[in-house]
């Protein structure tokens, strides 16, 4: 029974476009879903592997920009005589490139950054994201800078005359749901495997991990690559949904949003980023009903994060799990006590 309720949830979610006609709500679900995928990717690096990477939005943004640029085509002059240009490619290919380039960036960053650890690593990760943002702002020839890349085409898939367009919200919602489920499964399989155990071991006790034969650098890089590629996927989805992308996508606040989602949901758990993503996707909408200023909304986020760290330090999901485990123990203890006292079984 327990095994199947996630699937029941998926079926329920899949049915949404059939009965939900409010496009605004669908929009909320879509953006929440995209953020959930990003949060899941961050959870792999932050939650499971224990690395304080605060530059994650860079991978998201690199995926978004790459996908946009490949779909739109571009031309840049590296040196006065030397031009690199690319003709527009089909969107599905562009999205794939978004994933690949983000993953490659993750590989490079992983290889370089893990020479420094702890607080220094945090700073390097933030700095990296900021440099990428400043490049996006300033390299106008490639990125259009603050003027944004727009008219980004929507995804269409098809062959032999039959075509599916993911322009409208219901279709895109289904796309995000499918991608989200796939990403969830990828993470689930990864963390319950030898590679996953290695990553968790790195988080728990690095020296011990080394002594049992785990290659630290290899698994840190692996976690970063998968995490970056998945964030790139989220970015690609974002780009072909919103269909405009500007350098603000690299702002530190978005990394913070992802971190809040992962931490409040429960870092190092599978459901954590999903719950966190749902929570922080829903909260702005709830607050909107009260006509609260965005500043106040952010203050609530900040306070909420502080409260979670104090009172539910491991996040919502572990707190719920502990509660259920505690209840199970108490029920079992009661049963045992009753049995010992010779009372008839309930």
């Amino acid at each position: 029974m327990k095994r199947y309720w996630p699937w029941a949830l998926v079926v329920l979610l899949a049915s949404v476009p059939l009965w939900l006609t409010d496009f605004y709500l669908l929009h909320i679900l879509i953006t929440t879903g995209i953020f959930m995928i990003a949060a899941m990717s961050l959870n792999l690096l932050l939650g499971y592997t224990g690395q304080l990477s605060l530059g994650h939005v860079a991978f998201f943004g690199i995926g978004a920009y790459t996908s946009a640029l490949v779909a739109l085509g571009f031309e840049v002059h590296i040196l006065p005589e030397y031009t690199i240009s690319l003709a527009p490619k089909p969107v599905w290919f562009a999205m794939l490139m978004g994933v690949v380039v983000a993953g490659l960036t993750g590989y490079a960053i992983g290889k370089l950054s893990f020479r420094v650890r702890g607080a220094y690593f945090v700073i390097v990760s933030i700095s990296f994201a900021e440099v990428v943002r400043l490049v996006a702002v300033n390299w106008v020839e490639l990125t259009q800078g603050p003027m944004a890349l727009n008219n980004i085409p929507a995804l269409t898939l098809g062959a032999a005359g039959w075509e599916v367009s993911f322009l409208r919200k219901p279709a895109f919602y289904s796309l995000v749901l499918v991608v989200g489920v796939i990403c969830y499964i990828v993470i689930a399989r990864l963390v319950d495997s030898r590679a996953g155990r290695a990553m968790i071991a790195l988080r728990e006790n690095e020296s011990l991990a080394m002594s049992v034969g785990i290659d630290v650098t290899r698994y840190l890089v692996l976690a970063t690559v998968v995490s970056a590629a998945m964030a790139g996927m989220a970015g690609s989805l974002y780009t072909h949904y919103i269909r405009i992308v500007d350098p603000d996508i690299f702002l530190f606040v978005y990394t913070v949003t992802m971190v809040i989602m992962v931490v409040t949901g429960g870092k190092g758990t599978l459901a954590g980023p999903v719950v966190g993503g749902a929570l922080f996707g829903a909260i702005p909408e709830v607050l909107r009903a009260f006509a609260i200023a965005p500043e106040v909304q952010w203050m609530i986020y900040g306070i909420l994060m502080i409260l979670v760290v104090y009172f539910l330090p491991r996040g919502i999901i572990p707190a719920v799990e502990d509660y259920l485990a505690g209840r199970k123990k108490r029920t079992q203890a009661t049963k045992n006590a009753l049995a010992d006292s010779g009372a008839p079984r309930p």
Partner: protein
Amino acid sequence: MGELVQHLLNATVLGGTYALLGIGLTLIFGIMRVVNFTHGELYAFGAYCMYALVMMMGVNFYVALVLATLMGVALGAAVEVLLLSRLRGADIDTTMLVMIGAWIVLQNTEQLVWSGVALSIHNPFPAEPFVFGPLSVSWNRVFVFLAAIALIASTYYIINKTKLGKAMRATFQDRNTAALMGVRIGRIHTATFALGSGLAASAGALLGPVFVVAPTMGDMAAAKAFAIVILGGLGNITGATLGGFILAFVEELGAGYISSGYRDAMGFLLIIIILLVKPTGLFAQKERIG
């Protein structure tokens, strides 16, 4: 040539305040091992205090500077006592998250109170710059430089010549032994955070009248402060001082000769390069303060 010297002059003036930012953060980072995301907000707080005192309450400029700094000290102490004291002994990611939460709250409070409009603060100095030969520098900036040097010197004095400073250095080197020797670690934490925040606020109070005051001014300041801490090595005041000047020079020269758009990127690039090449910082041979 004249242009180069002008750049160097500008950099020297800026370097002093950068050094203040960096020293404050390196103390906090070094002694408390806290990734202090609120540092930039204390910088902004100092600037806003100046605005409120000078422009809204008509307080004397110099008095306002002192008051703004003291208010920064108070806010820093409050943050430490309210938020961090419970977390002593927690791991670095926990405190980091709390600091991020605090940063969000502080910045948005500022945004809410002052809205996003850029504000300017009048200064009592003559408007015409001080000119010698081909070089010119505004009196305001000269004052800022001198004030920064005075504050840096005061900090050196506190750290190296007072009992408090000795306790701080002891805590930095070996907190367990320091505790055994009677150092009240909790108080040292509060004092360190308050001192570091005060320095950040003073930098904001000094630079507020030079540039403009806006709610997001803290973000860049924080980023630069981190760059300086890494340049100079954790807990290394001399390193942070030198780092502040180095960063200012790199920025000025980079902006002047390469591209002004990437000016702010200089600090980040420096961080990345240094951490990859020499992770302990340019000056950290042995980690010590003072």
